[in-house]
């Protein structure tokens, strides 16, 4: 049985429509106009216990709104949502006990008191048994390296330290589900790595279900096996990361550094059907489908015609893929698959 099950989940917001400038403000003051915005538009998905899911989408796509419905913070306009057997907004407190939430943009630590006091408060709020609390705190302190700033107030620590402390606080009560809303925003590489490693260890060791929204694709590749993409409130892709790559990130590019400009492109082109060739002075690039050709075949086809000094291969990047999807240059499965499989996979 899935731990999260959403059917036709929808959230509509009423937005005030104001014309620009003073005149617009004046008009709006006397005659309010509103329009409805569908932040989340009839989405269906389910997540099995222990899964780690990246929930992606451009800014304003509806990611955070979905997370806030899952956590019981926002009440859905329509549709059904069951998280671990509960309707989150109806049993908000009960739901809160079994989830951990990290909002990258805001802290849950108390600003004015030492970090460790915030942890103690979490212990009381979640009624964590003393022994478990002590064990978890000791373990997390070590893995996340919290000892140095444990006794400083949250207001005095750096962003990277704050995020680590926030993550610790979200996991002290061993939640079944961990929601991470842009957990690595603004962090340096070392801190990012530490956080990803920690989250991954929770997934592997404790079977924690992770729902992650991010704009950092490193987060996804390190933590998640499945990605769900939402745009304009609708799910436009739901499937595993490897399948997505296989289906849509098929192109590799070989760049050859040449000793002399090629005399003619024609013979090379003839040897490489269905490939895209570009030249720029001493550089020749060949874009090819990695399922149709091996890199060696491309090299073998090029080498007889030119003198190659050096070459390198660009692997397909998830980042490019996602960028294309966001820009509308690549349309994934036209109707979001119910099965969690890629259309055509």
């Amino acid at each position, binding site marked *: 049985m899935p731990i999260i099950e959403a059917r036709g989940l929808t959230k509509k917001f009423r937005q005030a429509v104001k014309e620009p400038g003073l005149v617009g403000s004046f008009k709006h003051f006397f005659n309010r106009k509103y329009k409805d915005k569908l932040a989340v538009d009839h989405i269906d998905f389910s997540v099995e216990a222990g899964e780690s899911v990246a929930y992606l989408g451009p800014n304003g796509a509806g990611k955070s709104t979905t997370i806030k419905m899952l956590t019981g*913070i926002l*009440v859905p306009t329509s549709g059904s949502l069951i998280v671990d057997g509960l309707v989150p907004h109806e049993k908000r407190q009960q739901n*809160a006990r079994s989830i951990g939430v990290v909002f990258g943009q805001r802290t*849950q630590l108390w600003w004015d008191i030492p970090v460790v006091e915030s942890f103690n408060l979490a212990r*009381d*709020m979640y009624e964590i048994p003393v022994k478990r609390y002590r064990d978890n705190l000791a373990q997390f302190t070590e893995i996340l390296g919290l000892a140095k700033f444990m006794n400083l107030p949250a207001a005095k620590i750096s962003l990277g330290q704050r995020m680590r402390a926030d993550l610790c606080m979200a996991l002290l009560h061993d939640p079944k589900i961990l929601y991470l809303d842009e957990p690595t925003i603004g962090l340096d590489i070392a801190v990012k790595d530490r956080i990803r490693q920690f989250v991954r260890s929770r997934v592997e060791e404790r079977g924690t279900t992770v729902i992650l929204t991010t704009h950092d694709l490193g987060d996804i590749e390190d933590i998640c096996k499945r990605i769900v993409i939402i745009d304009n409130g609708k799910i436009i892709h739901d499937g595993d990361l490897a399948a997505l790559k296989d289906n849509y990130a098929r192109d590799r590019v070989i760049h050859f550094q040449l000793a002399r400009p090629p005399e003619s492109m024609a013979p090379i082109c003839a040897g490489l059907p269905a490939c895209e060739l570009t030249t720029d002075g001493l550089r020749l690039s060949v874009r090819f489908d990695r399922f149709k050709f091996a890199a060696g075949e491309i090299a073998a086809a090029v080498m007889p015609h030119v003198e190659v000094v050096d070459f390198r291969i660009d692997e397909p990047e998830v980042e490019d893929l996602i960028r294309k999807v966001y820009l509308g240059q690549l349309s994934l499965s036209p109707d979001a698959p119910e099965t969690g499989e890629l259309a055509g996979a």
Partner: protein
Amino acid sequence: MTGLGKYLAMARTSIEIWFVYRTTFVLNMIGSVFYVFAMFYLWQTIFLGSPGALAGFTWPEMKAYLLVSFVLGSLMPWFAEWNMSMDLKEGRIAIDLARPIDFQASRFASAVGPVPLEFCSAVAVGAVVAFMFGGIALPADGAHAAVFLVSAALATLIRFGLVYCVSMTAFWTTGTDGITVGRMAVQNLLSGALIPLVFFPDWLRAVAAVLPFQGMISTPALTYLGKMDAPTTALMLGVQAFWAIGLILLGRLAWRGAQRVVTINGG
């Protein structure tokens, strides 16, 4: 309610935070000295103009009334509406909502935590000023003092209930400044914080009698002075309890509605 411990912990934390803001505390003390001094001076002038009792109040009683009014007025932050609207504006409310805590109870715990400290510091400030004006009347005996403490506790509950209810408007409006100012103006007048209700014309006294405000200052101040006979005192405590419970329940009802309209700002 299960899990009282978490709310005790939150109250304890709010005390800790109270201690962090030492400078704010000192400045507040200085500010309130001026306020109490001004009130005493104003009323002293009025009593000098008409010696003896005014509407049944002697000058020592009036001084005690002013002191009680000041101390009770210093309990619980008056800026809860502002806090709530800031929490909403900046989206911090999401954090509270993702926790296994009752929203109202957690706000209450945070508000009530520092009350003993607020009480002591207000008494200290008030006592100094009262001493400068030649001392004040004390409750007649221990029983009166005990009844006063009960009434003062109920007054604090009403205060919380009212401010919480009003702060709920933050969910429907973007700014609550006007509402806060309005609430405070009405409250200062109808609670008897500035002028004892006996000085009011009949119609205004009748208005005050059916509203919760009098339970915030007037009722506890009158129990302190022993101005009401036993049955009246019992009735007035009952009225206070009615408003305390009523406002807290109303706040819970408002919260239910608020949860449906809540939007979280800032992504």
